[in-house]
């Protein structure tokens, strides 16, 4: 047995000091979650509750000829069997997706991917519901599927979306950014041009908790109460109002504890709508929880970009321009969760952290007979793909120039005095200071020594690789002038109420899926008004209890709602200052804020605490002229820009030359997410994201056979990494605050997932240099690495 290693630094030393504001403290939600006292959707039990199970298509593409439900309806314990035809009668057979496409709730005409919803059963218990699915007789006329994305637009390809008027092909959308002509001109005069085809295969967020809902429609009150696994309860409520025609004030969406989201719980899935319909039809509460296979085959995937990257540079290593062409597989329905004006999400940041003369991207998205989605899987709206592209192609350039990849990056960074920096694709990076971050990562790694060790090992035939990635993220969507989801601006509300005894409740529009909001937001408020985090209750996830906002994804909670929480606390503090001035009989200008109390300038003996002020605000006696009683405020925060965290990651791998197995020996992650609220939570986020990155780089992929059968329908087939595949993470940080965020925080939730895959792939490719390998696509399973060693590297799709 290996002894449990003590943490390298005693990072838990100050846990019990309970900072009043920023600093390390244990998570307030953990006692509940660690003791099994969390309350997840599947824990919701209501009197008379029924259970719903969904019949799914076994085929990727087939016409639904007939559906016979008579045997299922006659089975014991069955309360309702609903088909697409029945939903069509209610006008509910189709629903809008988050990208203004439509998606079938239950198939009426055709099934368009394996696992698509065809019918549902509501029964007294989960077992009866599942058994009854076997009794539904569906006659299918099997059609040729479109599985190979490269053939989706070929003449004569089967038409998937014949439900759309006038649709004659599988084209989904075209999109471009940057200046094609200017970029072509730079490429034409460049000393060196490198081109590389790069695939980011389809992966799945695979949260530990699958998706589900409990719907309870009260016919007398006309009110729908819906517990569901949603990262965006308010946005969902509005969309249900639009889809189902229920008045919005009669819909209450509750996101209880959520067991991981990673973007998988942003969309509205047919199952949620089925649960609502099931409750309306039966008059009883109805629970739907998908099983693991259903989650993997039918809910939002991520990535699936086939990219051609080109980079132009001078012979001495000045990067001039980057150009890319992307073929995007969006599955059967365009369910991408991204702001309306950004059909490719924020892929436009593929220019990376470098000062370029020109950049251009053209993209074609297509429909295929695969599950819909294209969700943010911890990727800040496609930035994972963008960062992978630029960091891979920069490494290809380094190889071409025979230049050290760290040196090449350092030579081309946007310099501190260039911020705010507008990229050639129109993104305005708010702040950054890249070189110290990069140098710190190299120092922790012992970069020069690692290169020396590598040279020595290579001389003995051993395979060791060092991979670097440097990323700039764009998070915190977003300014409402140009960012909305289906017409809903991406601003966030926040409310703060201080009770008479000086305890407080803060109500958020965002919702944690494990990120630690109940702690982080209490700390943000604590930092501003000096009430200890333990005295601040964080309420979130229930639309009847919280102000409107767009939810938690794309690392937006801290950049958007975190700003709202800080600003609402400052509003409360401003009011507290007026009350304090009356209490101390001085002018407002004579007071200064010393965290937790106002004191008279130059007379520290004369002060009142926030708690005393709170009691005065609610107590007897007059308040200053024009001041209402109570101590509370609300706000809706509209960010003026995104925030742009950055980071430098270095990965060291060893490859067994005999078996081609990759071992990640070391991983150094230096993150700059601006102001750090709770370093322990940040490190936890980074550790999780890095582990995710190991999974995507080395093992994860949702594959299909030629008939469109999903080959990743269980966690036996779709591998996610364990503790045994990851090293002891070595983390560091720099702090470059965001200039426009009230506390300078930038968000960190997805940085590690975005930044780590290219570092790992670059390390593997670096290790394989003696074999002449310049590129190999993920997932780098032993078999695929072995192919690369033999000069037979092939794309995974």
């Amino acid at each position, binding site marked *: 047995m290996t002894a449990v290693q003590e943490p390298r630094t005693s990072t838990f030393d100050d846990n019990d000091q309970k900072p009043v504001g920023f600093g390390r403290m244990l998570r307030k939600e953990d006692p509940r979650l660690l003791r099994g006292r969390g309350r997840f959707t599947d824990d919701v039990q209501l009197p008379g509750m029924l259970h719903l199970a969904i019949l799914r298509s076994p085929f990727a593409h087939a016409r639904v000829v007939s559906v016979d439900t008579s045997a299922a309806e006659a089975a014991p314990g069955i309360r309702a069997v609903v088909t697409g035809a029945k939903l069509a009668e209610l006008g509910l057979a189709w629903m809008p997706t988050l990208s203004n496409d439509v998606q079938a709730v239950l198939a009426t005409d055709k099934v368009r991917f394996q696992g698509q919803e065809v019918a549902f059963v509501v029964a007294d218990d*989960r*077992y009866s519901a*599942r*058994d009854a699915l*076997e009794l539904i007789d569906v006659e299918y006329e099997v059609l040729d599927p479109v599985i190979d994305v490269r053939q989706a637009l070929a003449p004569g390809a089967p038409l998937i979306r014949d439900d759309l008027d006038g649709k004659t092909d599988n084209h989904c959308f075209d999109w471009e950014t940057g200046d094609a002509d200017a970029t072509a001109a730079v490429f034409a005069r460049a000393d060196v041009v490198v081109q590389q085809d790069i695939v980011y295969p389809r992966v799945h967020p695979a949260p530990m908790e699958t998706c589900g809902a409990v719907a309870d429609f009260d016919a007398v009150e006309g009110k729908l109460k819906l517990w569901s696994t949603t990262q965006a309860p308010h946005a969902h409520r509005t969309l249900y109002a639009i889809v189902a025609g229920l008045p919005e004030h009669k819909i209450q969406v509750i996101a209880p504890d959520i067991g991981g989201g990673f973007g998988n719980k942003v969309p509205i899935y047919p199952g949620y709508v089925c649960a609502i319909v099931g409750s309306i039809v039966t008059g009883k509460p109805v629970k739907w*929880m998908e*099983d*693991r*296979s259903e989650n993997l085959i039918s809910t939002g995937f991520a990535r699936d970009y086939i990219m051609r990257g080109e980079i132009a540079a001078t012979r001495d290593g000045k990067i001039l321009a980057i150009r890319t062409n992307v073929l995007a597989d969006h599955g059967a329905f365009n369910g991408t969760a991204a702001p309306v004006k950004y059909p490719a999400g924020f892929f436009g940041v593929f220019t990376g952290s470098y000062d370029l003369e020109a950049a251009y991207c053209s993209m074609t998205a297509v429909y295929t007979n695969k599950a819909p989605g294209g969700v943010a899987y911890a990727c800040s709206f496609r930035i994972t793909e963008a960062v992978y592209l630029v960091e891979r192609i920069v490494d290809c350039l380094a190889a071409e120039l025979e230049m050290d990849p760290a040196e090449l990056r350092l030579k081309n960074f946007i310099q501190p005095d260039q911020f705010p920096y507008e990229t050639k694709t129109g993104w305005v990076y708010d702040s950054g200071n890249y070189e110290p971050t990069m140098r710190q990562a190299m120092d922790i790694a012992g970069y020069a020594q690692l290169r020396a060790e590598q040279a020595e090992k290579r001389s003995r035939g051993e395979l060791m690789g060092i991979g670097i990635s440097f990323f700039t993220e764009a998070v915190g969507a977003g300014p409402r002038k140009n960012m909305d989801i289906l017409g809903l601006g991406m601003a966030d509300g926040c409310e703060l109420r201080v009770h008479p005894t000086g305890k407080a409740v803060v109500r958020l529009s965002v919702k944690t899926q494990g990120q630690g909001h109940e702690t982080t937001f209490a700390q943000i408020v604590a930092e501003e008004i000096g009430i200890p985090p333990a005295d601040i209750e964080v309420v979130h996830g229930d639309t009847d209890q919280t102000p409107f906002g767009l939810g938690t994804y794309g690392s937006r909670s801290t950049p958007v709602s975190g700003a709202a929480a800080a600003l609402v606390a400052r509003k409360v503090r401003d009011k507290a200052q007026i009350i304090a001035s009356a209490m101390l009989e001085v002018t407002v200008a004579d007071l200064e804020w010393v965290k937790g109390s106002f004191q008279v300038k130059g007379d520290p003996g004369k002060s009142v605490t926030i708690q005393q002020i709170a009691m005065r605000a609610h107590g007897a006696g007059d308040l200053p002229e024009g001041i209402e009683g109570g101590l509370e405020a609300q706000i809706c925060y509209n960010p003026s820009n995104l925030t742009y965290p950055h980071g430098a990651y270095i990965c060291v791998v060893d490859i067994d030359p*005999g*078996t*081609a*197995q990759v071992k990640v020996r070391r991983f150094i992650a230096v993150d700059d997410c601006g102001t750090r609220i709770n370093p322990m939570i940040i490190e936890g986020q980074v550790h999780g994201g890095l582990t995710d990155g190991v999974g995507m780089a*080395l*093992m994860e992929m949702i*594959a299909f056979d030629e008939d469109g059968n999903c*080959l990743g329908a*269980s966690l*036996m*087939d779709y*591998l996610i*990494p*364990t503790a*045994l*595949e990851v090293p002891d993470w070595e983390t560091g940080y720099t702090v470059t605050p965001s200039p426009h965020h009230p506390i300078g925080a930038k968000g960190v939730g997805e940085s590690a997932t975005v930044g780590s895959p290219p570092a790992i792939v670059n390390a593997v490719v670096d290790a394989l240099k003696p074999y002449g390998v310049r590129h190999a696509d993920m997932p780098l*399973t*032993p*078999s695929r690495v*072995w*192919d690369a060693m033999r000069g037979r590297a092939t794309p995974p799709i």
Partner: protein
Amino acid sequence: MQVPAPFEYERATSVDQAIGLLERLGSSARLVAGGHSLLPMMKLRLATFDYLIDINPLHAELGYIRVGAGEVRIGALTRHRELLESDELAAAFPIFRDAERVIADPVVRNRGTLGGSLCQADPSEDLSAVCTTLDASCVIRGPGGAERVVSMGEFHVGPYETAVGDGEMLTEVRLPVRPGGGSAYVKVERRAGDWAVVSAGAAVWLAPDGTIADARVGLAAVGPNTTGIPEISAALRGREPAEKLYEQAGAIAARSCDPATDQRGSADYKRHLADELTRRTLRTAVARARS
């Protein structure tokens, strides 16, 4: 929650009572021991049985490792964890501990059994490769206490198919102990706990003069069942252990196996691994036999 089709469940009270139930219920009944292969298959509705007979109550009767002078006998209900932790077994056959360290995860090892592993007859299954390598024989008990003993080659009759008939039960695995022995097991997997891409076991027995008296290699995941390769044994017998010899054995392994391309790897890669892992395990087995 993944839900299996309805089934009846009965806990066994003795081996003979369980066999009596199997005889009466025929192929609609199945024994469940650790259940870590059977229950997922039932939940995914890849397998459905009307009856499950739970033999876990028979652990006292069928869970044992008895190391004798000429033979090791292991009860069919002996759990992975017991195989992993037995120092006596590791001393006689280090290949067991090698294999158990890379089989699934602690949760599965706490529950899964030797008999269940062999009866599942998965071509990628590690203990089947171990037993093939060690030239094990399997004791199958039928109605009325009748016992028959079959070799591993006879026991596995195809993927997921064994010689155990309706109304029969695997009760014990016997492993011959010979002097001068050493053994080893290596597995290549995409991730800890995954099924093997390919795995190999090797056992050698050295004569007093240091030459190879006998040797066996067993491979998993490269054919319809775990494969013993007699040609390797023939090539190694009577020879001095040496790298050249292992290379020769590896080459035989590569050309004798019959892997298929799947999500775990290409057939070419698996064939390469058959070679590479055969050499590695022979090297270790010889080193252990010498020490």
